[in-house]
Protein backbone atom coordinates (compact mmCIF):
# COMPACT_ATOMS: atom_id res chain seq x y z
CA UNK A 1 0.00 0.00 0.00
CA UNK A 2 1.31 3.45 -0.94
CA UNK A 3 1.14 6.56 1.25
CA UNK A 4 2.75 9.99 1.11
CA UNK A 5 6.50 9.32 0.84
CA UNK A 6 5.93 5.95 2.48
CA UNK A 7 4.96 2.38 1.68
CA UNK A 8 3.44 -0.33 3.84
CA UNK A 9 3.53 -4.08 3.33
CA UNK A 10 1.80 -6.61 5.55
CA UNK A 11 1.16 -10.36 5.81
CA UNK A 12 -0.62 -12.84 8.04
CA UNK A 13 1.29 -15.50 9.96
CA UNK A 14 -0.56 -18.75 9.27
CA UNK A 15 0.97 -21.80 7.64
CA UNK A 16 -1.49 -24.55 6.91
CA UNK A 17 -2.12 -27.66 4.91
CA UNK A 18 -5.70 -27.19 3.73
CA UNK A 19 -7.75 -26.98 6.94
CA UNK A 20 -4.94 -28.00 9.30
CA UNK A 21 -2.84 -25.22 10.79
CA UNK A 22 0.78 -26.30 11.03
CA UNK A 23 2.33 -23.08 12.28
CA UNK A 24 1.03 -19.73 13.50
CA UNK A 25 4.36 -17.96 13.19
CA UNK A 26 5.26 -18.16 9.52
CA UNK A 27 6.13 -14.68 8.19
CA UNK A 28 5.80 -14.20 4.45
CA UNK A 29 7.65 -10.89 4.05
CA UNK A 30 11.34 -10.86 3.22
CA UNK A 31 13.85 -8.02 3.24
CA UNK A 32 16.14 -7.46 0.25
CA UNK A 33 17.50 -3.94 0.84
CA UNK A 34 17.12 -1.35 3.62
CA UNK A 35 13.87 -0.06 2.11
CA UNK A 36 12.80 -2.91 -0.15
CA UNK A 37 10.55 -5.76 0.98
CA UNK A 38 8.91 -8.65 -0.81
CA UNK A 39 5.84 -10.57 0.33
CA UNK A 40 5.26 -14.08 -0.99
CA UNK A 41 2.01 -16.06 -0.84
CA UNK A 42 1.22 -19.46 -2.27
CA UNK A 43 2.80 -22.90 -1.88
CA UNK A 44 4.94 -22.76 1.28
CA UNK A 45 7.85 -24.66 -0.23
CA UNK A 46 8.02 -22.24 -3.16
CA UNK A 47 7.74 -19.27 -0.80
CA UNK A 48 10.96 -20.54 0.82
CA UNK A 49 12.63 -21.54 -2.46
CA UNK A 50 11.88 -18.25 -4.20
CA UNK A 51 12.84 -16.11 -1.19
CA UNK A 52 16.14 -18.01 -0.82
CA UNK A 53 16.88 -17.84 -4.54
CA UNK A 54 16.21 -14.11 -4.61
CA UNK A 55 18.33 -13.55 -1.53
CA UNK A 56 21.19 -15.24 -3.36
CA UNK A 57 20.62 -13.19 -6.51
CA UNK A 58 20.27 -9.91 -4.60
CA UNK A 59 23.42 -10.64 -2.59
CA UNK A 60 25.32 -11.28 -5.83
CA UNK A 61 23.91 -8.06 -7.26
CA UNK A 62 25.03 -6.09 -4.21
CA UNK A 63 28.56 -7.52 -4.33
CA UNK A 64 28.87 -6.86 -8.07
CA UNK A 65 27.38 -3.38 -8.05
CA UNK A 66 28.51 -2.34 -4.57
CA UNK A 67 25.09 -0.78 -3.90
CA UNK A 68 21.68 -1.82 -2.69
CA UNK A 69 19.13 -3.06 -5.16
CA UNK A 70 16.39 -0.58 -6.07
CA UNK A 71 12.75 -1.73 -5.84
CA UNK A 72 12.30 -1.33 -9.60
CA UNK A 73 15.37 -3.45 -10.28
CA UNK A 74 14.21 -6.10 -7.84
CA UNK A 75 10.82 -6.12 -9.58
CA UNK A 76 12.48 -7.00 -12.88
CA UNK A 77 14.69 -9.57 -11.17
CA UNK A 78 11.66 -11.24 -9.60
CA UNK A 79 9.83 -11.16 -12.93
CA UNK A 80 12.66 -12.76 -14.91
CA UNK A 81 13.30 -15.31 -12.15
CA UNK A 82 9.68 -16.42 -12.25
CA UNK A 83 9.44 -16.39 -16.05
CA UNK A 84 12.51 -18.63 -16.26
CA UNK A 85 10.17 -21.32 -14.95
CA UNK A 86 7.39 -20.46 -17.44
CA UNK A 87 6.39 -24.08 -18.06
CA UNK A 88 6.89 -25.40 -14.53
CA UNK A 89 6.21 -22.39 -12.42
CA UNK A 90 6.81 -21.59 -8.77
CA UNK A 91 3.36 -21.41 -7.22
CA UNK A 92 3.73 -18.00 -5.64
CA UNK A 93 2.23 -14.58 -6.21
CA UNK A 94 4.66 -11.99 -4.87
CA UNK A 95 3.99 -8.43 -3.74
CA UNK A 96 6.82 -5.92 -3.70
CA UNK A 97 6.97 -2.68 -1.74
CA UNK A 98 9.79 -0.22 -1.24
CA UNK A 99 11.17 3.27 -1.63
CA UNK A 100 13.64 4.09 -4.35
CA UNK A 101 16.58 5.68 -2.53
CA UNK A 102 17.64 7.69 -5.61
CA UNK A 103 14.29 9.30 -6.35
CA UNK A 104 12.81 9.00 -2.85
CA UNK A 105 9.57 7.81 -4.46
CA UNK A 106 7.46 4.92 -3.16
CA UNK A 107 7.13 1.90 -5.42
CA UNK A 108 4.85 -1.12 -5.23
CA UNK A 109 4.00 -3.88 -7.65
CA UNK A 110 2.61 -7.39 -7.76
CA UNK A 111 3.30 -10.44 -9.90
CA UNK A 112 1.51 -13.55 -11.10
CA UNK A 113 3.22 -16.92 -10.73
CA UNK A 114 5.04 -16.61 -14.07
CA UNK A 115 6.33 -13.11 -13.52
CA UNK A 116 3.87 -10.73 -15.18
CA UNK A 117 4.27 -7.44 -13.31
CA UNK A 118 1.25 -5.53 -12.12
CA UNK A 119 2.25 -1.91 -11.50
CA UNK A 120 -0.21 -0.16 -9.24
CA UNK A 121 -0.37 3.33 -7.80
CA UNK A 122 -2.48 2.42 -4.78
CA UNK A 123 -2.27 -1.13 -3.45
CA UNK A 124 -1.53 -4.74 -4.38
CA UNK A 125 -3.11 -7.78 -2.79
CA UNK A 126 -2.39 -11.50 -3.06
CA UNK A 127 -3.19 -14.83 -1.42
CA UNK A 128 -6.26 -16.80 -0.42
CA UNK A 129 -7.95 -13.69 1.03
CA UNK A 130 -7.27 -11.57 -2.06
CA UNK A 131 -10.97 -10.98 -2.82
CA UNK A 132 -11.61 -9.81 0.72
CA UNK A 133 -8.46 -7.67 0.57
CA UNK A 134 -9.61 -6.04 -2.66
CA UNK A 135 -12.83 -5.08 -0.89
CA UNK A 136 -11.28 -3.69 2.28
CA UNK A 137 -8.38 -1.92 0.55
CA UNK A 138 -10.64 -0.36 -2.08
CA UNK A 139 -12.94 0.80 0.69
CA UNK A 140 -10.40 2.10 3.22
CA UNK A 141 -7.45 3.35 1.19
CA UNK A 142 -7.07 6.97 0.14
CA UNK A 143 -4.17 8.84 -1.50
CA UNK A 144 -1.35 10.57 0.41
CA UNK A 145 -1.75 8.88 3.79
CA UNK A 146 0.84 9.71 6.45
CA UNK A 147 2.93 6.79 7.79
CA UNK A 148 0.76 6.51 10.93
CA UNK A 149 -2.49 6.63 8.96
CA UNK A 150 -1.10 4.20 6.41
CA UNK A 151 -0.25 1.78 9.21
CA UNK A 152 -3.80 1.98 10.57
CA UNK A 153 -5.30 1.59 7.09
CA UNK A 154 -3.25 -1.42 6.03
CA UNK A 155 -3.73 -3.09 9.43
CA UNK A 156 -7.49 -2.66 9.45
CA UNK A 157 -7.71 -3.77 5.82
CA UNK A 158 -5.63 -6.89 6.43
CA UNK A 159 -7.21 -7.94 9.74
CA UNK A 160 -10.79 -7.47 8.54
CA UNK A 161 -10.02 -9.35 5.33
CA UNK A 162 -8.32 -12.36 6.92
CA UNK A 163 -11.12 -12.65 9.49
CA UNK A 164 -13.45 -13.46 6.58
CA UNK A 165 -11.08 -16.12 5.20
CA UNK A 166 -10.80 -19.46 6.98
CA UNK A 167 -7.33 -20.10 5.51
CA UNK A 168 -5.69 -16.86 6.64
CA UNK A 169 -5.03 -15.06 9.88
CA UNK A 170 -3.43 -16.04 13.20
CA UNK A 171 -1.70 -12.73 13.66
CA UNK A 172 -0.09 -10.33 11.23
CA UNK A 173 3.16 -8.54 10.56
CA UNK A 174 3.25 -4.98 9.20
CA UNK A 175 6.18 -3.00 7.82
CA UNK A 176 5.96 0.77 7.38
CA UNK A 177 8.73 1.89 5.06
CA UNK A 178 9.80 5.54 5.01
CA UNK A 179 12.82 6.96 3.18
CA UNK A 180 15.25 6.36 6.01
CA UNK A 181 13.18 4.52 8.59
CA UNK A 182 11.41 1.19 8.67
CA UNK A 183 8.95 0.27 11.43
CA UNK A 184 7.97 -3.34 11.98
CA UNK A 185 4.88 -4.15 14.01
CA UNK A 186 3.30 -7.42 15.08
CA UNK A 187 -0.49 -7.55 15.26
CA UNK A 188 -2.16 -10.21 17.35
CA UNK A 189 -5.46 -10.46 15.52
CA UNK A 190 -7.96 -13.26 16.05
CA UNK A 191 -6.45 -16.61 16.98
CA UNK A 192 -9.02 -18.81 15.21
Amino acid at each position, binding site marked *: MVGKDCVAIACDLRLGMQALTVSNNFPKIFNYAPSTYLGLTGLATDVATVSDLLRYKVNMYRLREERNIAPQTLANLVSSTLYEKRFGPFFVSPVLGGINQTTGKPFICGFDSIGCIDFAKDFIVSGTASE*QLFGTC*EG*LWEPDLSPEDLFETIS*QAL*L*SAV*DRDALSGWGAQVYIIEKDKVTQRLLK*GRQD
Partner: protein
Amino acid sequence: MTSFGRYTSAETVGYSFSQPTSAPNKEHSFYPYTDNGGSTLGISGSDFAILAGDTRSVAGYNINSRYVPKVFKIGGDDESGDGAHILLSVVGFAADGQALKERLDAVVKMYKYQHGKPMSVRACAQRLSTILYQKRFFPYYVHAILAGLDEEGKGALYSYDPVGSYEREQCRAAGSAASLIMPFLDNQVNFKNQYIPGSGEGHALEPKKAEPLPRETVEQLVRDAFTSAVERHIEVGDGLQMMVITKSGIEEIYSPLKKD
Protein backbone atom coordinates in the same frame (compact mmCIF):
# COMPACT_ATOMS: atom_id res chain seq x y z
CA MET B 1 -12.78 -56.07 -33.01
CA THR B 2 -11.55 -52.62 -32.39
CA SER B 3 -13.69 -49.95 -30.92
CA PHE B 4 -13.00 -46.36 -31.68
CA GLY B 5 -13.42 -44.26 -28.58
CA ARG B 6 -17.00 -43.69 -27.60
CA TYR B 7 -18.47 -44.79 -30.94
CA THR B 8 -20.16 -48.13 -30.52
CA SER B 9 -20.83 -49.77 -33.82
CA ALA B 10 -23.31 -52.56 -34.37
CA GLU B 11 -20.96 -54.04 -36.94
CA THR B 12 -19.09 -57.08 -35.78
CA VAL B 13 -16.39 -57.02 -38.43
CA GLY B 14 -13.83 -54.36 -37.62
CA TYR B 15 -12.80 -53.15 -41.08
CA SER B 16 -10.70 -50.03 -40.81
CA PHE B 17 -12.88 -48.35 -43.45
CA SER B 18 -16.16 -49.28 -41.86
CA GLN B 19 -18.30 -46.40 -40.72
CA PRO B 20 -20.45 -46.48 -37.65
CA THR B 21 -23.92 -47.39 -38.88
CA SER B 22 -25.74 -45.16 -36.46
CA ALA B 23 -24.84 -41.73 -35.15
CA PRO B 24 -23.59 -41.84 -31.58
CA ASN B 25 -26.10 -40.73 -29.02
CA LYS B 26 -25.15 -37.47 -27.44
CA GLU B 27 -26.80 -36.75 -24.19
CA HIS B 28 -28.33 -33.31 -23.90
CA SER B 29 -28.94 -31.89 -20.54
CA PHE B 30 -30.82 -28.83 -19.44
CA TYR B 31 -29.32 -26.79 -16.67
CA PRO B 32 -32.15 -24.88 -15.06
CA TYR B 33 -30.04 -22.13 -13.48
CA THR B 34 -27.91 -19.19 -14.60
CA ASP B 35 -25.94 -16.74 -12.53
CA ASN B 36 -27.02 -13.20 -13.25
CA GLY B 37 -24.34 -11.68 -11.03
CA GLY B 38 -24.56 -8.45 -9.14
CA SER B 39 -24.51 -7.75 -5.46
CA THR B 40 -26.85 -6.63 -2.71
CA LEU B 41 -26.27 -5.14 0.68
CA GLY B 42 -28.41 -4.42 3.71
CA ILE B 43 -27.72 -2.46 6.88
CA SER B 44 -30.13 -1.81 9.74
CA GLY B 45 -30.18 1.25 11.99
CA SER B 46 -32.06 2.24 15.15
CA ASP B 47 -35.19 3.41 13.33
CA PHE B 48 -34.55 2.47 9.70
CA ALA B 49 -33.17 -0.23 7.45
CA ILE B 50 -31.45 0.13 4.10
CA LEU B 51 -31.40 -2.41 1.32
CA ALA B 52 -29.31 -1.73 -1.74
CA GLY B 53 -28.31 -3.50 -4.90
CA ASP B 54 -26.61 -2.72 -8.16
CA THR B 55 -28.81 -2.83 -11.25
CA ARG B 56 -26.59 -4.69 -13.71
CA SER B 57 -27.72 -8.08 -14.98
CA VAL B 58 -25.16 -10.34 -16.62
CA ALA B 59 -24.92 -13.76 -18.22
CA GLY B 60 -21.30 -14.83 -18.45
CA TYR B 61 -19.42 -11.85 -19.89
CA ASN B 62 -22.56 -10.39 -21.50
CA ILE B 63 -24.49 -7.56 -19.97
CA ASN B 64 -28.20 -8.33 -20.38
CA SER B 65 -29.34 -5.03 -19.01
CA ARG B 66 -28.08 -2.03 -17.10
CA TYR B 67 -31.31 -1.66 -15.17
CA VAL B 68 -32.75 -4.78 -13.59
CA PRO B 69 -33.73 -4.00 -9.99
CA LYS B 70 -32.81 -6.48 -7.26
CA VAL B 71 -34.59 -4.73 -4.41
CA PHE B 72 -38.37 -4.96 -4.18
CA LYS B 73 -41.18 -3.60 -2.05
CA ILE B 74 -43.27 -6.40 -0.58
CA GLY B 75 -46.99 -6.18 0.13
CA GLY B 76 -47.64 -2.87 -1.60
CA ASP B 77 -49.57 -1.74 -4.64
CA ASP B 78 -48.73 -3.85 -7.72
CA GLU B 79 -47.78 -0.85 -9.86
CA SER B 80 -46.37 1.73 -7.49
CA GLY B 81 -45.54 -0.42 -4.47
CA ASP B 82 -47.33 2.11 -2.28
CA GLY B 83 -48.27 0.87 1.17
CA ALA B 84 -45.47 -1.67 1.38
CA HIS B 85 -43.77 -2.06 4.73
CA ILE B 86 -41.24 -4.77 3.92
CA LEU B 87 -38.28 -4.86 1.53
CA LEU B 88 -36.78 -7.87 -0.17
CA SER B 89 -33.55 -8.10 -2.12
CA VAL B 90 -32.59 -11.11 -4.19
CA VAL B 91 -29.34 -11.84 -5.94
CA GLY B 92 -28.20 -14.87 -7.87
CA PHE B 93 -30.53 -16.34 -10.49
CA ALA B 94 -32.76 -13.42 -11.48
CA ALA B 95 -35.73 -15.52 -12.67
CA ASP B 96 -35.91 -17.34 -9.34
CA GLY B 97 -35.51 -14.00 -7.60
CA GLN B 98 -38.46 -12.61 -9.51
CA ALA B 99 -40.55 -15.69 -8.78
CA LEU B 100 -39.66 -15.59 -5.10
CA LYS B 101 -40.54 -11.93 -4.83
CA GLU B 102 -43.93 -12.58 -6.48
CA ARG B 103 -44.60 -15.48 -4.08
CA LEU B 104 -43.72 -13.49 -0.99
CA ASP B 105 -45.65 -10.46 -2.22
CA ALA B 106 -48.77 -12.62 -2.69
CA VAL B 107 -48.32 -14.22 0.73
CA VAL B 108 -47.99 -10.87 2.49
CA LYS B 109 -51.09 -9.53 0.68
CA MET B 110 -53.15 -12.65 1.47
CA TYR B 111 -52.12 -12.33 5.09
CA LYS B 112 -53.45 -8.77 5.20
CA TYR B 113 -56.73 -9.75 3.51
CA GLN B 114 -57.26 -12.72 5.80
CA HIS B 115 -56.17 -11.19 9.09
CA GLY B 116 -57.01 -7.55 8.51
CA LYS B 117 -53.58 -6.36 9.66
CA PRO B 118 -50.21 -6.06 8.00
CA MET B 119 -47.79 -8.97 8.41
CA SER B 120 -45.00 -8.31 10.89
CA VAL B 121 -41.43 -8.47 9.58
CA ARG B 122 -40.69 -11.30 12.00
CA ALA B 123 -43.58 -13.36 10.64
CA CYS B 124 -42.65 -12.52 7.07
CA ALA B 125 -39.05 -13.56 7.77
CA GLN B 126 -40.16 -16.96 9.05
CA ARG B 127 -42.58 -17.36 6.13
CA LEU B 128 -39.82 -16.60 3.62
CA SER B 129 -37.67 -19.27 5.22
CA THR B 130 -40.52 -21.77 4.84
CA ILE B 131 -41.06 -20.82 1.20
CA LEU B 132 -37.38 -21.36 0.46
CA TYR B 133 -37.21 -24.65 2.35
CA GLN B 134 -40.28 -25.99 0.58
CA LYS B 135 -38.10 -26.08 -2.48
CA ARG B 136 -35.25 -27.79 -0.64
CA PHE B 137 -34.47 -30.15 -3.54
CA PHE B 138 -34.98 -27.69 -6.41
CA PRO B 139 -34.09 -24.44 -4.69
CA TYR B 140 -34.67 -20.84 -5.62
CA TYR B 141 -31.08 -20.09 -6.55
CA VAL B 142 -30.87 -16.81 -4.69
CA HIS B 143 -29.42 -15.15 -1.64
CA ALA B 144 -32.26 -13.15 -0.18
CA ILE B 145 -32.17 -10.30 2.32
CA LEU B 146 -35.36 -9.11 3.98
CA ALA B 147 -35.67 -5.71 5.67
CA GLY B 148 -38.29 -3.78 7.58
CA LEU B 149 -39.05 -2.35 10.99
CA ASP B 150 -39.68 -4.68 13.94
CA GLU B 151 -42.45 -4.45 16.56
CA GLU B 152 -40.43 -1.83 18.47
CA GLY B 153 -39.87 0.29 15.37
CA LYS B 154 -36.20 -0.68 15.14
CA GLY B 155 -34.56 -1.55 11.85
CA ALA B 156 -34.76 -5.30 11.16
CA LEU B 157 -32.65 -7.21 8.67
CA TYR B 158 -32.81 -10.91 7.90
CA SER B 159 -30.46 -12.78 5.54
CA TYR B 160 -31.07 -16.16 3.93
CA ASP B 161 -29.24 -18.91 2.14
CA PRO B 162 -30.91 -20.47 -0.93
CA VAL B 163 -32.69 -23.15 1.13
CA GLY B 164 -34.08 -20.98 3.88
CA SER B 165 -31.55 -20.95 6.68
CA TYR B 166 -31.85 -17.43 8.10
CA GLU B 167 -30.56 -15.08 10.74
CA ARG B 168 -31.29 -11.54 11.93
CA GLU B 169 -28.21 -9.36 11.51
CA GLN B 170 -26.96 -5.78 11.65
CA CYS B 171 -25.58 -5.92 8.15
CA ARG B 172 -25.09 -8.34 5.29
CA ALA B 173 -23.67 -8.32 1.80
CA ALA B 174 -24.75 -10.94 -0.72
CA GLY B 175 -24.01 -11.81 -4.32
CA SER B 176 -20.89 -11.92 -6.41
CA ALA B 177 -19.08 -9.10 -4.59
CA ALA B 178 -20.13 -10.24 -1.10
CA SER B 179 -16.60 -11.37 -0.29
CA LEU B 180 -15.34 -7.88 -1.14
CA ILE B 181 -18.00 -5.96 0.74
CA MET B 182 -18.54 -8.11 3.84
CA PRO B 183 -15.13 -7.62 5.53
CA PHE B 184 -15.43 -3.88 4.87
CA LEU B 185 -18.80 -3.92 6.62
CA ASP B 186 -17.42 -5.92 9.56
CA ASN B 187 -14.89 -3.15 10.00
CA GLN B 188 -17.08 -0.11 9.41
CA VAL B 189 -20.46 -1.22 10.82
CA ASN B 190 -19.59 -3.68 13.56
CA PHE B 191 -16.21 -2.00 14.22
CA LYS B 192 -14.38 -5.35 14.09
CA ASN B 193 -10.64 -5.02 14.83
CA GLN B 194 -11.21 -1.51 16.18
CA TYR B 195 -10.30 -0.61 19.75
CA ILE B 196 -10.86 2.43 21.95
CA PRO B 197 -7.60 4.41 21.97
CA GLY B 198 -6.00 4.63 25.40
CA SER B 199 -8.44 2.19 27.00
CA GLY B 200 -5.68 -0.17 28.06
CA GLU B 201 -2.21 -1.44 27.37
CA GLY B 202 -1.61 -3.97 24.59
CA HIS B 203 -4.04 -6.88 24.79
CA ALA B 204 -6.09 -5.20 27.51
CA LEU B 205 -7.37 -2.64 24.96
CA GLU B 206 -11.11 -2.43 24.97
CA PRO B 207 -12.86 -3.29 21.71
CA LYS B 208 -15.00 -0.55 20.18
CA LYS B 209 -18.68 -1.43 20.68
CA ALA B 210 -20.93 -1.68 17.66
CA GLU B 211 -23.85 0.72 17.85
CA PRO B 212 -26.60 1.49 15.34
CA LEU B 213 -25.29 4.13 12.95
CA PRO B 214 -27.10 7.29 11.83
CA ARG B 215 -28.80 7.14 8.43
CA GLU B 216 -26.40 9.54 6.65
CA THR B 217 -23.42 7.45 7.72
CA VAL B 218 -25.06 4.22 6.58
CA GLU B 219 -26.05 5.69 3.20
CA GLN B 220 -22.48 6.84 2.66
CA LEU B 221 -21.13 3.40 3.65
CA VAL B 222 -23.44 1.74 1.14
CA ARG B 223 -22.26 4.09 -1.62
CA ASP B 224 -18.62 3.50 -0.67
CA ALA B 225 -19.10 -0.26 -0.57
CA PHE B 226 -20.62 -0.28 -4.04
CA THR B 227 -18.19 2.15 -5.69
CA SER B 228 -15.41 -0.06 -4.30
CA ALA B 229 -17.05 -3.26 -5.55
CA VAL B 230 -17.56 -1.71 -9.00
CA GLU B 231 -13.83 -0.99 -9.25
CA ARG B 232 -12.84 -4.61 -8.65
CA HIS B 233 -15.75 -6.78 -9.78
CA ILE B 234 -16.83 -6.95 -13.39
CA GLU B 235 -20.36 -8.15 -12.60
CA VAL B 236 -21.16 -5.12 -10.45
CA GLY B 237 -21.96 -1.71 -11.91
CA ASP B 238 -24.30 0.50 -13.94
CA GLY B 239 -26.58 1.74 -11.19
CA LEU B 240 -27.15 1.68 -7.45
CA GLN B 241 -30.67 1.20 -6.21
CA MET B 242 -31.14 2.01 -2.54
CA MET B 243 -34.35 1.59 -0.58
CA VAL B 244 -34.64 3.10 2.86
CA ILE B 245 -37.48 1.98 5.09
CA THR B 246 -38.50 4.25 8.00
CA LYS B 247 -41.71 4.67 9.95
CA SER B 248 -42.80 7.27 7.38
CA GLY B 249 -42.53 4.79 4.53
CA ILE B 250 -40.12 3.60 1.89
CA GLU B 251 -37.83 5.93 0.03
CA GLU B 252 -36.12 4.80 -3.16
CA ILE B 253 -32.88 6.40 -4.25
CA TYR B 254 -31.21 5.63 -7.57
CA SER B 255 -27.73 6.81 -8.38
CA PRO B 256 -25.56 5.89 -11.34
CA LEU B 257 -22.48 3.70 -11.00
CA LYS B 258 -19.67 3.23 -13.51
CA LYS B 259 -20.88 1.44 -16.66
CA ASP B 260 -17.53 -0.10 -17.66
